[in-house]
């Protein structure tokens, strides 16, 4: 069995990652999942969070938005609306976004229709802050 698998992270604007990775940790909507070569075919929903993978002995960190994951024949495809490498994230900006999102959520009254969106905004910003810190 091969000791790497192909990891592709695509956004509508670009193919952000296209590498042979040894391991990956992907934020699924029902928890983080670790992926190693030879993983069974899988489909799942991607939640906003921190995606880490190792390729060529180096660990890379990305903040991803919600999306989808597909694993098939040692190709891991991650589709998301945005994926930022940790080095491209500005920590202060991410922190400001996080506190803005948290304030918006905490400030009563929260309209029910927006609630999910606000929660998403918080987790999105949280992911950026977490990724920037690594």
């Amino acid at each position, binding site marked *: 069995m091969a000791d790497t698998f192909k990891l592709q992270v695509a956004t509508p604007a670009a193919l952000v990652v296209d590498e042979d990775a040894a391991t990956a940790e992907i934020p699924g909507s*029902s928890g983080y999942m670790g992926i190693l070569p030879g993983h069974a075919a899988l489909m799942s929903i991607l939640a906003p969070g921190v995606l880490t993978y190792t390729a060529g002995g180096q660990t890379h960190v990305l903040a991803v938005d919600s999306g989808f994951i597909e694993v098939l024949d040692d190709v891991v495809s991650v589709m998301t609306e945005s994926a930022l490498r940790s080095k491209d994230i500005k920590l202060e900006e991410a922190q400001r976004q996080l506190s803005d999102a948290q304030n918006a959520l905490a400030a009563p009254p929260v309209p029910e229709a927006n609630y999910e969106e606000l929660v998403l905004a918080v987790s999105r910003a949280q992911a950026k802050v977490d990724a920037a810190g690594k």
Partner: protein
Amino acid sequence: MANVLDLRRRIRSVKNTRQITKAMKMVSAAKLRRAQERAIASRPYAQMLSRMLSNVAAAAAAMDDSSELPLLAVRDEKKIQLLLVSSDSGLAGGFNANLFRVVRKFIGEHQGAEIGIEAVGRKGRDYFRRLGSNLTGYHHGIFDKPKYEEAAAIARTLSERYAKGEIDALYLAVNEFKNVMAPAISLRRILPIELPESQEQHDYIFEQPPAELLSKLLPRYVELQVFRALLESNSAYNAARMTAMDKASSNAADVIDTLTLNMNRVRQASITREIIEIVSGAAAL
């Protein structure tokens, strides 16, 4: 008959025009390249999404629980929504006019239905407002540099209206980039979604039920189609503009040639006349 000075002035003016059209052509060529790069960059995402959609759809169909999704519901097309992607500015030959003709034909063919037009781009709005069509929305300034969020916002609004039953079908009218010479006009239905046929069945582990995945994938698919339409249209627009400006430049060159010939003739005539005057004056002495 025009005198030499007038002709010279006109030649200068046409030369200036040629300078401008040449510059515009160059700008469009650069923009076209960037637009194509963006279109190419969005391709992996698009491929992944359609592949996953067809796989999930096959799995959901096997479990027979996909028919309930609102974006798949087929209804009688009584209220049709048309998303028209035109440009904000002109100077691109028949780019918008050809598209509008196709759309008018479409409207003529669907007399019985109530048609609402959602316009992206100023040209489309102006044209169909003049015609007195029912404009449901207008998006300005997103055509030049299409962003996914903007396309997604449009798609979401329209999908919601579809899900609520306010509209029975969503059609997309757009110029697609075929080659630099001529765009390909496309008018196709994007809602209700026709699921792509899946060729192969894989034995996936589903963390969520396929129907749930499908219900999340479908809106994304609509968003992506709108985004791709904007990208395609932007490439096609810049290509059309480039061609139009190239034609304008060569036309200006032709006009300059004709005017120069004319001017030389007029100058020659006046020289000849002066010589005759001098000669006859001398002969009279």
